[in-house]
């Protein structure tokens, strides 16, 4: 493992930023944290996680796909894609790293989404093990170990030091280029892992169990509890937009006045025109829209992906839903009816 004193962390960031853009979680001045491009003066946040997820790096809220210029009867098609530059994201938590795997399974299987792939290939992820999980955290429910996040490299902050180890060739290439000292003395890291494991076991949602709903998918689909759960849902997109695994998008044309910009943007199954077709929408009521979101994460996605759930337990929806309805409440209610 590489080791450096925390007092040198900004010099470490500076070294990475010399060659490529570096993003780290920084306080947003509003009581939360958000990924910010590192520059002198940008400090690493102590927050458990960022308010917006890390999916933005690979699946931004909007991106231009193609431009059209109309000239008389001629339509010129312009490939507006910009080749992505190499970048590094530091401080991604285990839940968010796991979300990349889920996005990969959607965007990197045939037909491969070249826009997503481009970003993924140019990004290096340095994860950061959790040491102070929050009451809204439940990654353990989905078998994610917050103390051993994946990524190209993973870091630990223990005592007054930053420990960091490479997990992939990409991570190894980056770390070895930085000239940091290596150490065999990793006792502090293991002590911290043990301590964090204790904290994780004591979290209020530690006992939450992910039941296998896939075997009783029709029972789950027809469960009467959906009516109560969705009853006061506002139909806004907060949950979908803060969610690291929500991956649906819409493609729209923007008339610039002298041409068309075709762009894609995040969509939300909570919205009235989600998957709108010529005959209308297949899900007319908020109950159906609401059910779709949770069935996707708890039933449809696992059915198609060897039982892997489409939720990573980051807890953002627990914090951000205007009416405090969330996947944990859904799992509990659904668990009872599919027993």
């Amino acid at each position, binding site marked *: 493992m590489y080791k450096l004193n925390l007092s040198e962390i900004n010099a470490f960031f500076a070294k990475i930023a010399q060659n490529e853009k570096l993003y780290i979680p920084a306080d947003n001045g509003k009581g939360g944290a958000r990924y910010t491009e590192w520059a002198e003066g940008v400090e690493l946040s102590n927050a458990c996680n960022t308010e917006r997820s890390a999916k933005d790096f690979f699946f931004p*809220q909007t991106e231009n796909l193609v431009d059209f210029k109309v000239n008389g009867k001629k339509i010129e098609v312009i490939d507006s894609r910009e080749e992505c530059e190499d970048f590094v994201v530091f401080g991604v938590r285990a839940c968010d790293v796991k979300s990349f795997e889920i996005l990969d399974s959607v965007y990197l299987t045939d037909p491969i989404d070249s826009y997503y792939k481009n970003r993924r290939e140019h990004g290096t992820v340095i994860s950061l093990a959790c040491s102070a999980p929050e009451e809204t955290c439940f990654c353990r429910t989905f078998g994610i170990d917050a103390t051993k996040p994946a990524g190209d490299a993973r870091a630990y902050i223990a005592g007054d030091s930053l420990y960091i180890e490479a997990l992939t060739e990409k991570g190894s290439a980056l770390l070895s280029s930085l000239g940091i000292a290596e150490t065999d003395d990793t006792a502090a890291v293991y002590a911290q892992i043990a301590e964090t494991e204790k904290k994780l076991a004591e979290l209020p949602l530690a006992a939450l169990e992910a039941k296998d709903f896939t075997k009783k998918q029709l029972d789950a689909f027809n469960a009467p509890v959906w009516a109560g759960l969705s*009853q006061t849902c506002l139909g806004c*997109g907060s949950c979908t937009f803060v969610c690291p695994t929500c991956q649906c998008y819409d493609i*729209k044309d923007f008339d610039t006045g002298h041409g068309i910009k075709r762009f894609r*943007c995040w969509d939300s199954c909570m*919205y009235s025109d989600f998957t*709108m077709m010529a005959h209308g929408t297949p899900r007319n009521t908020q109950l159906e829209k609401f059910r779709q979101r949770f069935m996707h994460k708890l039933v449809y996605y696992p059915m198609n992906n060897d039982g892997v759930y489409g939720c990573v337990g980051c807890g953002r929806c627990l914090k951000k839903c*205007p009416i405090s309805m*969330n996947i944990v*409440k859904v799992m509990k209610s659904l668990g009872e009816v599919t027993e």
Partner: protein
Amino acid sequence: MQKVMIERAAELLSSGKVNRVLGWRAGLFAHDNTPSVFTDAADLQANFVYNEFCGANLSKYLVKESDKEGTVAVFLKPCDTYSFNQLIAEHKIKRDNVYAIGVQCNGMKDVNDREKLEERCASCKSRKHVAYDELIGESGEILDSNRFDMVEKLENMTSEERFEFWRGELSRCVRCNACRNVCPACTCEKCIFDNPDSGSANKAPADPFEENLFHIIRAFHVAGRCTDCGECSRVCPENIPLHLLNRKFIKDINELYGEYQAGETVNERGPLVNYTQGDAEPSVVYERGNS
């Protein structure tokens, strides 16, 4: 309070006076209560909650609930009663189908910083219930609030500073529409921003000013009808102080047309939908703009 409210709600249900009760359902923690409709006493006993984290304004749910068969009982905090009145004035709530129970409120806590009162409660405009069929706890007075302090600060900025302030705040908008969907003044059946035929429907900021316009247009649309319930800022996942846009309109209306509080009464015509010979001339805009 909670115990009395549960007892009263159970009584109303069993007597047949109402067939549903709109209140708050306890969550996983003490601070994540969800608005909910109750129909039986056992459910009320087990899950009904009224604590300092019941910020959600239940008035807007009455648009749908009062359209159903039977009578729905609803618990309204003082500020919620203003939205309630305003929705009745706009013919959105069928008053006869609602049994309104005013409940005392001592201010709601901020979910993000649970030691603190929510901003709207720290600058509470009124502890008085302006509508109810019965009251549980006490109804207070209209307060001498400092709620326009920040608006004044913004007014005293140069236009460049103000532009900078709003660009900074609104640039964080993710267009989740939570502010619009929770707003009791936003009750259009099809919002122009959702209507693909409107030319202004969008799910994301399509250019760098898009989300700014969304909020400005929304503030204009609710001007004169916004009661300053503060739900827009409470629900914003990006903590944008959206209520300041509405408060600016309220302050301007107060200054140009005389003190007016939307939702205070049901029968009064608001200043922006009423004509009097004393109305401010349009030129006032230019005069104020130049000052």
